[in-house]
């Protein structure tokens, strides 16, 4: 550490003489010159079906596991036990709300019971407004004709969230208490979140078999990190003075944890639960590829026959479920505070009302357990077919009337921006690109970021998919630029106007939760199977995050600063460019960071619509045994790109804040 600190000193002195943008420009210029000279040499290209030694070795490992899974004690006594436990949990929850068990033709609790219970629980942990929303949302599933599918999805989500919290909260507490453990965990969490799920779907089914248990485990791997991170953050943010006060009263470490740290961080931990639920729902369609039941299956199946309407109907159900669960947990996090503010009158009423509501819910559960009319959702879900045909009509209209325009846009951006940039990245010698990346890391983020960038470049070369990695990097960079453009335009607009914020925000929420599989077909019709389609899909998914962060940043610029600028005669444009954006600079860097990570998480989806490169490699590895190792290597390459950018942008953000 000391060495690193010393090493930054000379940079600081140089920086006084030469400004940072000038160094960046010099690096880029040198790159262009060398590219012109060395073009096409040492580019490390690898054809679609070619493999390296590493890829073959990974294949062998995979085959060995497959061949020995019935005799190896690790499987018999460890993995199989885990599988059994999780399988029992899933089957139990499913038998409660979604699947018929034994001689019963319907689950134990029918729709009326589920709706009643959801409403009651939402009211008890939140407030009556979210309870109403929850009841309306759940009834909507039935009207869509997707009751059972929705309940299967809910069952899997609940099981996965339960397991994720059982693992995540203790680990989070530990990481909150110990700096050392936190440092060890962070790279693992990064890895779990950036590794494309496609990569471990095949090995997971190999270890945990096909179906519910594997689906839950996949989801847990993806959904646990937010729980761990946010719990650790919550424990850390308990004020030092409170802990010291407890210390001086002579509490033991356990007492301190149970009586001080956990209660005080409860609110933030509930937000972690919220993030875990959202992450779990994002996995619904991916898990359907290994036969997980539920809404994801409907989406995936509808796509086989390009049935956009049906896919949209199921996607909408996922969005509604996400909105309900999000609002309920958010309300739960804020409830304690709200209750304190509203004073005693309501709290006196609360206990008897809770009891009465509980009895009411129990009666509804009993009814739905006993009577067919309360167990099976009445009606034939005709609303679903209306939604589906409306979605179909809209899509067809768009395809017929907009495709000329979209094709023009695609060609301009592809030939003008994407192709030159991609050529520069893929046709330069690998060591030149590597040097440029490390150099930019040093200039933007300091020596440490530069070293990390260099290490990542080395490992990328080691994966054997360097050239595909550079192709993906080009598309990713273009997508991120577009994300930032949208982020700045809408973020500033939303940050400056409460009304716009309220109008746009629900659309952003929906864009984040709607499974990308749903809008792939319309995008394919509009843009064809091209890299650009993948870029558009990534932008739709990543822009909401960037917009929200920038909007918050702009809103946080202090009122008085803006007023001062107005009184000194600045017009709106000047206020935005000279005051609000510069002061929201750290929000801008954070938005770039998150935008990039979200774009990277769409690389695999891009592989399904013509982006090729790493995304295609990963999908191919999932589909074909002999490409398994290459798919895994491509997945690692995506993680490496993510780590490299995350470290550089974070270090750069720390610098701008300093």
């Amino acid at each position, binding site marked *: 550490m000391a060495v690193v600190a010393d090493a930054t000193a000379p940079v600081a002195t140089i920086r006084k003489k030469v400004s940072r943008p000038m160094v960046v420009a010099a690096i880029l210029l040198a790159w262009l010159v060398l590219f012109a000279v060395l073009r096409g040499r040492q580019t490390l290209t690898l054809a*679609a*079906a070619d493999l390296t030694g590493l890829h073959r070795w990974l294949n062998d490992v995979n085959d060995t596991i*497959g*061949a020995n*899974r*019935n005799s190896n004690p690790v499987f018999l006594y460890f993995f199989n036990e885990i599988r059994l436990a999780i399988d029992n949990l899933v089957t139990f929850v499913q038998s409660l709300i979604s699947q018929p068990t034994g001689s*019963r*033709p319907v689950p134990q609790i*029918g729709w009326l019971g589920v709706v009643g219970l959801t409403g009651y629980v939402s009211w008890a942990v939140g407030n009556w407004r979210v309870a109403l929303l929850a009841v309306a949302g759940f009834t909507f599933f039935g009207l869509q004709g997707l009751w059972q599918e929705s309940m299967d999805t809910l069952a899997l989500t609940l099981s996965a969230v339960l397991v994720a919290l059982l693992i995540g909260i203790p680990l989070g507490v530990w990481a909150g208490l110990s700096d050392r453990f936190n440092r060890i965990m962070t790279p693992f969490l990064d890895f779990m979140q950036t590794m494309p799920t496609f990569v471990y*779907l*095949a090995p997971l089914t*190999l270890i945990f*078999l*096909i*179906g519910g248990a594997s689906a839950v485990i996949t989801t847990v791997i993806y959904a646990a990190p937010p729980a761990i991170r946010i719990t650790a953050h919550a424990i850390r943010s308990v004020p030092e003075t409170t802990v010291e006060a407890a210390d001086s009263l002579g509490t033991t470490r356990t007492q301190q944890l149970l009586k001080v740290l956990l209660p005080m961080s409860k609110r933030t931990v509930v937000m972690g639960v919220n993030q875990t639920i959202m992450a779990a729902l994002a996995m619904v369609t991916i898990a*359907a*590829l*290994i*036969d997980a039941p539920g809404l994801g299956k409907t989406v995936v199946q509808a796509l*086989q*026959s*390009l*049935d956009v309407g*049906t896919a949209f109907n199921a996607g909408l159900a996922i969005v509604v479920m996400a909105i309900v669960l999000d609002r309920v947990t958010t309300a739960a996090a804020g409830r304690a505070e709200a209750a304190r503010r509203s004073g005693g009158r309501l709290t006196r009423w609360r206990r*008897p*009302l809770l*009891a*009465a509501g509980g*009895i*009411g819910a129990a*009666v509804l559960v009993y*009814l739905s*357990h*006993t*009577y*067919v*009319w309360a*167990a099976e959702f009445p009606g034939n879900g005709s609303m679903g077919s209306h939604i589906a045909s409306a979605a179909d009509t809209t899509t067809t209209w768009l395809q017929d009337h907009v*495709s000329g325009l979209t094709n023009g846009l695609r060609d301009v951006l592809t*030939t003008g921006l994407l*192709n030159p940039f991609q050529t520069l990245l893929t046709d330069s010698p690998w060591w030149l690109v590597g040097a440029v990346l490390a150099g930019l890391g040093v200039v933007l983020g300091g020596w440490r970021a530069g070293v990390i960038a260099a290490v990542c470049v080395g490992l990328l070369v080691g994966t054997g998919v360097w050239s595909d990695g550079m192709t993906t990097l080009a598309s990713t960079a273009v997508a991120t630029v577009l994300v930032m453009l949208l982020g700045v335009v809408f973020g500033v607009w939303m940050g400056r106007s409460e009304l716009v914020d309220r109008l746009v925000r629900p659309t952003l929420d929906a864009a984040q939760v709607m499974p990308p599989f749903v809008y792939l*077909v319309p995008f*394919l*019709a509009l843009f*064809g*199977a091209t*890299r*650009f389609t993948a870029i558009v899909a990534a932008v739709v998914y990543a822009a909401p995050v960037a917009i929200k962060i920038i909007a918050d940043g702009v809103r946080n610029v202090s009122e008085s600063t803006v007023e001062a600028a107005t009184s000194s005669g600045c017009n709106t444009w000047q206020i935005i460019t000279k005051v609000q954006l510069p002061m929201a600079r750290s929000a801008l860097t954070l938005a770039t960071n998150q935008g990039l990570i979200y774009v990277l998480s769409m690389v695999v989806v891009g592989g*399904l*619509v*013509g*982006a*090729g490169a790493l995304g*295609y490699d990963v*999908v*191919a590895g999932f*589909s*074909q*045994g002999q*490409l398994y190792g290459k798919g895994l290597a491509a997945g690692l390459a995506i993680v490496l790109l993510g780590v490299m950018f995350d470290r550089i942008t974070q270090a750069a953000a720390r610098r701008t804040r300093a």
Partner: protein
Amino acid sequence: MARHWQAGAAGLAVLGLTLTACSGAKVGDSGSAGSKSSGGKCGSFNLAVNPWVGYEADAAVVAYVAQHDLGCTVNKKDLKEEIAWQGFGTGEVDAVLENWGHDDLKAKYIAGQKTAVEAGSTGNKGVIGWFVPPWLAKAHPDITDWKNLNKYADKFKTSESGGKGQLLDGDPSYVTNDAALVKNLKLNFKVVYAGSETALIQAYRTAEKNKQWMIGYFYEPQWFMSEVPLVKVNLPTYTKGCDADAAKVACDYPVYDLDKIVSARFAKSGGPAYNLVKKFNWTNDDQNTVAKYIAVDKMSDDAAAKKWVDAHRDKVDAWLK
């Protein structure tokens, strides 16, 4: 406090009333569960469903017959090929109904791990090759000969093909030699990977509708052919063994005799479901009919299967003998 309890009691009374008033049919009473109880000697039957509509049609019909004529409990599992074959060894999958000459998987699971065995042909003839949309074949009839492809290469250029003509491939799990073919036939084309069947079909659909130039990989039997009857481009004729060396292939794809693969355990059991799978045999037309019911008419798998089975009782009876 007393007032609240009164309110609670009143609420309870109302609920109690509704409870007695709306009785209705009880769960578990006769009628609601009757049809499913015929478990019989067949037991449960785990059927893999690979992700294309033709396969879905196979699976729909076999599952329907197994359930209604043999009384099996059918568990359909939606899986890609590689994962489905993996399931033979773990007992999660009993049968795969439509195998497209996956010699690599046969070598691994039939010869290597010995968890799977072959169960004969489905009767379907699988045709793989390069196809163009019908409008293009009509406008330029000579395009169906590969020798003329270079003449038109310019027309097939896209933003993805780097100045050459684009040959669009689909899902990575397809059996394909296209990259080698382009190289060995000295075609001025570049293989572009769409990455999914959905992307490929959408590309053909748009090309036909807007009269765009497009050539790509496709196969029969396929439901999409009933919407847009694509025209096959003739590559140099297939001769036995001309595709032996994957890097030097310069001939057309063979006509695949699509076959069924079952798990070794399932075959040994010799139960009614196994016999059904073994005897299941129909034509491309049969499959396309059912696939059209599912994909174009948007019927459920079960309804589509019922419609076909009711109309072709004689064929089904032959499978059950």
